[in-house]
């Protein structure tokens, strides 16, 4: 099953099912999707949109530190959303931070989905000991809060790797840590479907005609789980983005050289008491908008794909 055929199937479900109809009928879902799309575009175009390069030390000017929104800089720069303690333009930092948050969120959800689907397929197909090991691990992990697992994985790599090395690999480590804490749901869903499908006649028929069972399962089950996986992924995307920002806020996620929305809030948190509210709340607000748009869309998608609830 090629990628393009998967895309065609999903697109087909959108166009001929009533998903698109329901989508157009729900102003809230349309608004959430539009906001989400706007944020993604802003993040992708950060290089073009940001007035200043947030990573260029030359653009930071200590004399312009902690200016409130709408201030003029020493050399006549305009800081629409103010500056941070290093004199960086908040707007630019936020755009780049948004990009980092989105990249980590999307990558970790993608990784979690791939891990979960594969482990679920293997567990359901092999059964026996392998199934038991995978699913018991899932059970145990489900008992633990996801954020704790991500925290532990991140904490352990921090203890193992020397500081400079860890800093260089902070983002991949973070992505793996978050993915490892969210794979369980996918695995359970896929395994359940495999167990149902492998008893069906067509699997038997395919085996008789010489097509291997794994291949049959793959070709038939993957399209069936696309709907549920899409829903889980959308809702998990919001969770993953929040987890990343939370870890970065706690100072165990991304280092200061790679600002994400969470680490920007962390920086601002130190200046809350001096009344410099914009350094923490503005990136926070952007984070909330992102999380809210994904959450609302995911909520809508779940209801739309579940006819039992759509009354």
């Amino acid at each position: 099953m090629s990628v393009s055929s998967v895309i065609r199937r999903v697109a087909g479900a959108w166009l001929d099912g009533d998903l698109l109809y329901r989508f157009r009928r729900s102003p809230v879902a349309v608004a959430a999707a539009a906001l989400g799309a706007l944020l993604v575009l802003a993040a992708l175009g950060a290089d073009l949109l940001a007035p200043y390069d947030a990573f260029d030390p030359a653009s930071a000017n200590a004399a312009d530190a902690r200016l409130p929104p709408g201030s003029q800089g020493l050399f006549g720069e305009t800081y629409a959303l103010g500056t941070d303690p290093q004199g960086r333009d908040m707007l630019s930092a936020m755009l780049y931070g948004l990009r980092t948050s989105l990249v980590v969120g999307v990558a970790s959800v993608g990784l979690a989905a791939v891990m979960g689907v594969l482990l679920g397929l293997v567990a359901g197909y092999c059964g026996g000991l392998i199934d038991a090991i995978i699913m018991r691990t899932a059970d145990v992990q489900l008992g633990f809060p996801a954020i704790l697992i991500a925290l532990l994985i991140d904490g352990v790599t921090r203890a193992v790797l020397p500081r400079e090395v860890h800093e260089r690999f902070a983002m991949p480590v973070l992505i793996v840590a978050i993915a490892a804490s969210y794979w369980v749901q996918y695995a359970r869903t896929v395994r359940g479907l495999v167990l149902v499908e492998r008893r069906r006649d067509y699997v038997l028929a395919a085996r008789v005609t010489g097509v291997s069972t794994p291949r049959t399962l793959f070709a038939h089950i993957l399209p069936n789980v696309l709907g549920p996986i899409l829903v889980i992924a959308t809702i998990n995307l919001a969770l993953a983005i929040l987890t990343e920002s939370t870890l970065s806020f706690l100072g165990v996620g991304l280092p200061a050289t790679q600002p994400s929305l969470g680490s920007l809030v962390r920086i601002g948190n130190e200046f809350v008491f001096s009344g410099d509210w914009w350094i923490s709340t503005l990136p926070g607000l952007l984070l909330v908008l992102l999380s809210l748009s994904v959450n609302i869309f995911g909520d809508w998608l779940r209801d739309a794909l579940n006819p039992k609830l759509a009354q």
Partner: protein
Amino acid sequence: MIFVLGRLGQAFLVLLAAALVSFCLFRFVGDPVNNMTGQAASLAEREAMRAALGLADPVVLQFVRFVGKAVHGDFGMSYRFGQPVAGLVLERLPATLELSVVSMLIATGLGLPLGVWTALHRGSRLAQAVLAVSLVGIALPTFLIGIVLILVFSVRLGWLPSFGRGDTIQLGPWSTGLLTGSGLRSLVLPSVTLAVFQLALILRLTRAEMLEVMRTDFIRFARARGLHRGAIQYRHGLRNTLVPVVTIVGLQFGNVFAFSIIVETVFQWPGLGLLVIQAIQFGDIPVLAAYLVLVALCFAVINIAVDLFHLAIDPRIRISGGARGAA
């Protein structure tokens, strides 16, 4: 009885898994000898220490010894503080437990009734509004809620303290902030911050479960029997809703424990969470290991409590458990 034993076995498995992970952390992450002796120690000193710590023994034996010690609350010395980990953890535990329990009470006390109410008044504008606000509650990052609450109630209005526990009273080994005015005032912002997400979650889950139950045949049949609306909604609807909701509330307690790390960081609340986040930043593995085991223990205890509750309320489990017990 067999049912309970089965669940106990499962809880034991989780504990064992946590112990294994924390043992691996302890044994293989970083070199314990290096961590304890520092750079200056000679090779001979290191070997002596290694033998003294039992690190030369077979790994399985070491694990058994680790579990044996853990059962007695011995998790070794903190790399950072040079004190026994057990003492550090016990000293911090009351602060975190008080915070978690109070916020869970807030979340359940408001979330459950609101969830029931929004389910029963599905069409009303107010219920729709409550539901929309609850989605915002789900989407808000906890740390941001804390920061905004501090900005508004501590910095702007100056009504409530923004850090620490206030005055505490020592009751035996337990230090409580619940008996002093400043302790209670200090608890308000952190516990509300910690409660917001759980409240929204409990509200939405209760609503979903209640709607599910109100759609069932026995509710339709109860209406056909001409029962009063209150009897249908509460005696039949709510009771059946509570079974899954209590499970969720119980399991969420573990999450509250984890999220207290965030809240304790924002409010500098001197509990376990703050200890753990510092342990992660400093690579203080013994503290991490102890925390992991403690969370697993907490998880096991809650699971058993939830099962006992089910046993008390749900006759289906009671009978099937009994039948299996007799067999």
